[in-house]
């Protein structure tokens, strides 16, 4: 090797591993972020393992009900024959006499997958429309922005309610309804990033190199503009779960969810609302599950912001 020996060529130990380790170090510095990542990873694990944790035959829990019925020790003013309080089953049983903990576990994959679908689609739409708008500028930019403005102007929940009413109450429609009010934010976000990124000198260098426009935009500019989007997406997973639950709580749910056949956190909560004073655990625990999942992803998002912030990084 005929490298010139000199002080100029000093290299730090490096590579993807070191990078990852440093990122983890940045995240672990903040206790709240650590809590957030544990909660988020935990809920993803629960979602993946839901059908292992809960037997497929999880229906009405007869044994629990038998213990509860006419038992003078625990039967205090239970409003429905099916409801059993917590000590009998870890979180009690719901209004259908099913183990509430099992129902919550079964609800997590549904809620989480809806949230992920919505956020992922919003991110993709945002990247495509936002980056094209930002990079092309001119009429295309104006057109895309005005269309986003229209969707921005209508309140999200209202739009979702209208859509569900018109299209019918199914899970794909629910996803679509929330998505429609969710994507404009991402378009705005990535457009502003691309606008500042496209003026950077390396883009000029790429043009000078004869790189095509698509390649410059999607291979070079977008990866440089995507960090705020990742943070926003993580933050939004919590908010989307809340919105979906709100819609279901308000009664805009597919029939399987409304009748309680498919457990969903929002519907569990709304059913529990009927027994707010006599059986408060029915609303507390599903509500708590929503809180924990959204909190987890929110804190994780905060942590990612720290990791991606170049000023903290270097």
């Amino acid at each position: 090797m005929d490298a010139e020996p000199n002080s100029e060529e000093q290299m730090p130990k490096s590579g993807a591993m070191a990078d990852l380790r440093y990122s983890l170090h940045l995240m672990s510095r903040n206790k709240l972020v650590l809590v957030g990542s544990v909660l988020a990873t935990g809920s993803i694990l629960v979602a993946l393992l839901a059908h292992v944790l809960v037997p497929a035959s999880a229906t009405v829990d007869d044994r629990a009900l038998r213990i509860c019925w006419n038992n003078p020790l625990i039967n205090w003013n239970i409003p429905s024959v099916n409801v059993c309080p917590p000590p009998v089953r870890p979180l009690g049983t719901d209004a259908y006499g099913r183990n509430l903990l099992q129902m919550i576990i079964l609800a997590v994959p549904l809620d989480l997958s809806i949230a992920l679908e919505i956020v992922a689609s919003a991110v993709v739409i945002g990247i495509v429309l936002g980056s094209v708008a930002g990079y092309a500028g001119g009429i295309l930019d104006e057109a895309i922005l005005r269309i986003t403005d229209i969707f921005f102007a209508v309140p999200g929940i209202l739009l979702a309610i209208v859509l569900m009413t018109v299209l019918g109450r199914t899970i794909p429609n629910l996803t679509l309804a929330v998505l429609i009010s969710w994507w404009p934010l991402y378009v705005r976000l990535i457009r502003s990033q691309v606008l500042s990124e496209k003026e950077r000198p390396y883009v000029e260098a790429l043009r000078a190199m004869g790189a095509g426009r698509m390649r410059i935009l999607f291979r070079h500019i977008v990866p440089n503009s995507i960090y705020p989007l990742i943070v926003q997406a993580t933050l939004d997973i919590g908010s989307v779960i809340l919105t979906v639950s709100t819609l279901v709580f308000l009664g805009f749910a597919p029939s399987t969810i409304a009748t309680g056949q498919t457990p969903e956190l929002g519907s569990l909560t709304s059913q529990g609302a009927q027994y707010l004073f006599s059986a408060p655990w029915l609303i507390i625990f599903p509500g708590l599950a929503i809180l924990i999942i959204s909190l987890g992803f929110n804190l994780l998002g905060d942590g990612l912001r720290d990791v991606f912030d170049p000023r903290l990084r270097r």
Partner: protein
Amino acid sequence: MTVRSEAQKEREGAAVLEVRDLRVSFHTYLGEVKALDGVDFDLRRGEVLGLVGESGCGKTVTALAIGGLLSDNARVEGGQVLLEGKDLLKETKEELRQTRLREVSFVFQDPMTFINPVLSVGSQIAEVLESDRVFQDELVEYRLDELAREESKGDLTRAQAEERQALEGLGRGKKLSKKVLKRLAESRALDYMRTVKLPDPERVFKMYPFELSGGMRQRVMIAMALVRRPKVLLADEITTALDVTVQAQVLKLLAELRGKIDASVILITHDLGVVSEICDRVVVMYAGNVVEVADIDELFANPLHPYTQGLLASIPRPDVHAEEMKSISGSVPNLIFPPSGCRFHPRCPKRFDRCPGVKPPLVEVKPGHKVACLLY
């Protein structure tokens, strides 16, 4: 008309790039900035041509105009840029892109900001080759040559022999798989990283720009520019952002590369020291005009234009004790309302009555030495 010897013609070689009477103006709110007003020079095959002048004299605009990279408010008012006879100013955007991809490369001033920060440097060098199928045949030939060299040194390994068979069996124009193309591009990228003397290229290949020093980044940029084997390399102030030791290393590298690459180089700089080190010929520009063109020795020994004389006189010299540093009085003219006639006349110590009225043509006063001044 002077008769030139065969040797001189041989030395001068044919022009790769001819810039003829190039006029560019920028349209701004304040008015039309006549940035280039008839720029005229040749770049001969294999030479390093220095393009010298103050800030704002149009050096960079000339380079950008050659590559078709002028900003939207710029307009080429006239002239020709002939790359081996083909006029780049008449090309469509797509043709120009292909030209930049294959024939004209740029290296920019600041290596800190001209490389994408989120991709590894190796993949960025290789990407240029992968990005377009136009390099495919070339890559295959390159790899076959490499294998042939290996063979002459000793026997090929089985894998290498199989690879050669596969590559030879490939008809021209038949598409390589993405994976093979990527591997070929990467091996050539590594080769060029060795050419520009990056230490430990295998490791640097996977590193990110922020992990490299300024000098190494400049080497990466040079590798990126050379890996496509361009005919013309436009180096725009490549040493300006580097400190003096690194500057010297980069210049040394350029000098060493001259024998290895077939590109002709236009070195844009305001540093006459840099010019004197590696250039063969110099084009001196002032306010959008070419004022003097000469061989490097001739220019330093016998500067004709008053501006060139001023420039050379203002180089600080440790052996001459002067009370005050010499400089050219006045400042760069406003190019929205450029001075009439010779644009240098308001600052010229030798001006006379004809200067404000007549624009001096670029005349050849000696073989290979042209000057635009009414004195000659």
